[in-house]
């Protein structure tokens, strides 16, 4: 096991793929007390239609990846949180569109905690009773999100954009959809997606990599898995058009919340290289357009159309890509009208080389700052690794971008027929 050196960020990464297919990455951080470990599977909320090991084609209830995440913490001997707590480790997990991640941070007993992490995720224990009980807890989680205006306006926009793609289904599902989950469906999902070949383990912190890797190897060697065959996942055809121009949700808020964005018309599949270039180019462009140093931001702030929480985001994967812009506003219609006018100005006068250089520099600074955070390194690395992209190489991609790339991105992205709007406002 030889480390790969990344001199620009002054990091060394130890990598190994174990015989059972598990990808292990260890990043020692000199001087750090804490170790953060995340064990992830490529199974998220969008993976609701796939082929199982026996060749049968299955559709699973909405919210099952997240439900499974909750249930993994239960073992025959009891709750895994208890086991981590005894070794002083803070454990947690999360489910996103395309992955489920189990994690802990600890400053002591690192090897034992890593073994606990591997063992509990590789040891499902579902019973009719414990599955039923979880429905009450997750039901309350769904209710909690239902009361959060920021979540509702965010999800509302994705719902407005996507007609068939499962990204438009809430990660936790609904109270109704999770009522259909039973232990059999959980086991089917588990056996399909929790094969080591579909998973990655990333550890970062004050660790000795060779010794830790040996322990992980030994742990995995004691377990048997069938040979890995990549999972066939089915995504429905998604029309290039948005589902609806505007989605309005009613909830008590002090000011309307408005997010709007453009659904990218994905023509064919992007290679990982194209995908990351598109993402980073968009981020530099969005800083030029929407960050606090932009003309648009300062103008809209002066016109009292945005608050200081105004922001933008850009997401791209192999099956979906979209932008998200907005925040709280007194007048959603006027905000969009003014944004459109200011973007038209920008297309004529905005592509200034010094502004581009400044925004790129800001992005590079933000990227380097992430390396202070073990959590950010591990989660970002894994997120991109699952898309066949190397997170440690972003610096050179940022440096290769040109003003021409940004201009082209602007022309490709801002297609006003692709605009969708989501608003949360108080009931009248």
């Amino acid at each position, binding site marked *: 096991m030889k480390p790969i050196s990344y001199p620009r960020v002054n990091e060394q990464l130890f990598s190994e793929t174990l015989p059972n297919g598990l990808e292990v990455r260890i990043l020692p951080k000199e001087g750090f007390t804490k170790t953060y470990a995340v064990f992830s599977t490529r199974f998220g909320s969008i993976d609701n239609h796939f082929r199982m090991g026996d060749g049968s084609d299955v559709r699973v209830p909405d919210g099952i990846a997240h439900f499974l995440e909750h249930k993994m913490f239960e073992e025959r001997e009891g709750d895994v949180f208890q086991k981590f707590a*005894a070794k002083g480790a803070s454990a947690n997990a999360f489910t996103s569109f395309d992955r489920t991640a189990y994690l802990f941070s600890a*400053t002591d007993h690192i090897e034992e905690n890593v073994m606990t992490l591997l063992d509990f995720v590789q040891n499902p224990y579902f019973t009719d009773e414990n599955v039923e009980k979880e429905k009450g807890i997750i039901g309350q989680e769904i209710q909690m999100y239902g009361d959060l205006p*920021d979540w509702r306006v965010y999800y509302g926009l994705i719902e407005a954009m996507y007609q068939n793609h499962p990204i438009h289904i809430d990660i936790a599902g609904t109270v109704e959809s999770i009522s259909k989950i039973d232990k059999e469906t959980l086991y089917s999902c588990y056996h399909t997606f929790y094969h080591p070949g579909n998973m990655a383990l990333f550890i970062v912190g004050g660790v000795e990599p060779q010794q830790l890797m040996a322990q992980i190897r030994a742990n995995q060697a004691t377990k048997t898995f069938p040979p890995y065959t990549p999972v066939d996942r089915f995504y429905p055809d998604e029309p290039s058009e948005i589902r609806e121009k505007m989605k309005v949700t009613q909830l008590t808020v002090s000011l309307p919340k408005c997010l709007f964005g453009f659904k990218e018309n994905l023509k064919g599949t992007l290679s990982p290289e194209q995908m990351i270039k598109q993402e980073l180019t968009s981020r530099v462009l969005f800083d030029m357009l929407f960050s*606090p140093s932009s003309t648009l931001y300062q103008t809209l702030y002066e016109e009292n159309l945005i608050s200081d929480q105004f922001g933008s985001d850009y997401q791209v994967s192999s099956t979906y890509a979209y932008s998200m812009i907005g925040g709280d506003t007194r007048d959603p219609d006027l905000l969009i009208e003014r944004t459109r006018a200011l973007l038209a100005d920008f297309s004529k006068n905005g592509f200034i080389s010094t502004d581009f250089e400044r925004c790129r*520099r800001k992005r590079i600074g933000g990227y380097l*700052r992430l390396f*202070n955070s073990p959590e950010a390194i591990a989660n970002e690395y894994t997120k991109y690794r699952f898309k066949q992209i190397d997170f440690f190489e972003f610096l050179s991609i940022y440096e290769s971008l040109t003003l021409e790339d940004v201009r082209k991105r602007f022309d490709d992205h801002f297609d006003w027929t692709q605009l969708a709007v989501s608003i949360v406002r108080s009931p009248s």
Partner: protein
Amino acid sequence: MQKTRFERAEEGGLRIHVLPTDRFKTYAVSMYIGSPLTEETVTPHALIPFVLRRGNRAYTETKAFREKLDELYGAGFGFDIYKRANNQIVQFRMDTIADRYTGAAEDADLLRETLTFLLQTVGDPALENNGFLNKYVDAEKVTVHKRLEAIINDKARYAAERCTQEMFANDAFRFNALGRMDAIEKLEARTLYESYLSWISRAQIDLYVVGDTNLSKVLEIVKPLWKQKHAEKMVYQFGDERYASRQEVNEVIERLDVNQGKLNMGLRVPIYYPDEIYPAAMMYNGILGSYPHSKLFINVREKASLAYYASSRLDGYKGMLMIQSGIEIANYKQAVEIIKEQLNAIADEQISDLEMDQTKAMMTNQLNEVNDSAFEIIALDFNAVLTGTERTVESIISAISKVTKPQIADIAQQVKLDTIYFLRDRKGEKSE
């Protein structure tokens, strides 16, 4: 592990704390400006940092001000306003990439540029006609007003805020750190600048720098830049918070359009950060509700399946503890009952060895993690400055390891439930 030791000095009323280390890829800079929390000053003091972040004398226009931050490799710049007992603290933060990672020119000096920017922003604001700029004051009044109004958007936060108001109905602690909504309107550029001058001269100001530098370098940068007049400094107030407790628990039920009920229970804990027994209060909070192995999580969530979250938070400056949970509205009485049972259980010393060991291990871990974050190292050290009681990571860990079950039960017996606040839906609401 590297030892963390601050080098300290004072310059023109500014207390400077520098921690030289090359562990991080950035320079972390924090400036704390503290003043007493009072009804009259809470609103102008809250508005001041909003106006300061619009522009300083060198970069008067906000666009130029923000462009400068982008040029410093997108330096993180922000501020928070919060309460520590009855003190209102404004904290400015900056976070800039260390020069060795930028690939910039040899003579680049991002720490100098960062400190210069921060000190100019706090000490040398953009002015017109002996006051702040009207346009900035007007816009930021609207912003602060909106922030206060927006508390209601996050119902869990709103419930915590309302429970605090109920608990401290006759105490300045009831005010939000962002001020009073009804006091914003009358603030204006001239008088706000006068408030600023008196604030900056009397406030306690602590400047922290953590990164690849040292005290003499920081002093050399700061000396020519910091020219504030300083009057007699206020001292941080930790007066007698041992307020009279209520005879009966105050129960407040409010209605809004919510799907989920938000339950908050506010308790008075007459044990404070400087108290020798304070680590036992931290353990009490840990056993009760800080972790997934704590009594609240296990009993409210795992056993009764009533909630997704059920936790507690200790405020050792003010001597209060807040329990919060999101529940099905119909389960209100049952949830309160289960929570009270947990409070009683600890008072009866129903604490297992496992709970003790787990809680000590979790707290030790959390404390050790402080050393991996520049801003957390700063925050812990600032607690010593604030309370006059130095507690280091090592000393707290050592004190926690010695806490016993009877000490925790003793804390539990001093804890007193003050207010139960429940935010529920409008169903079945009586019409007026």
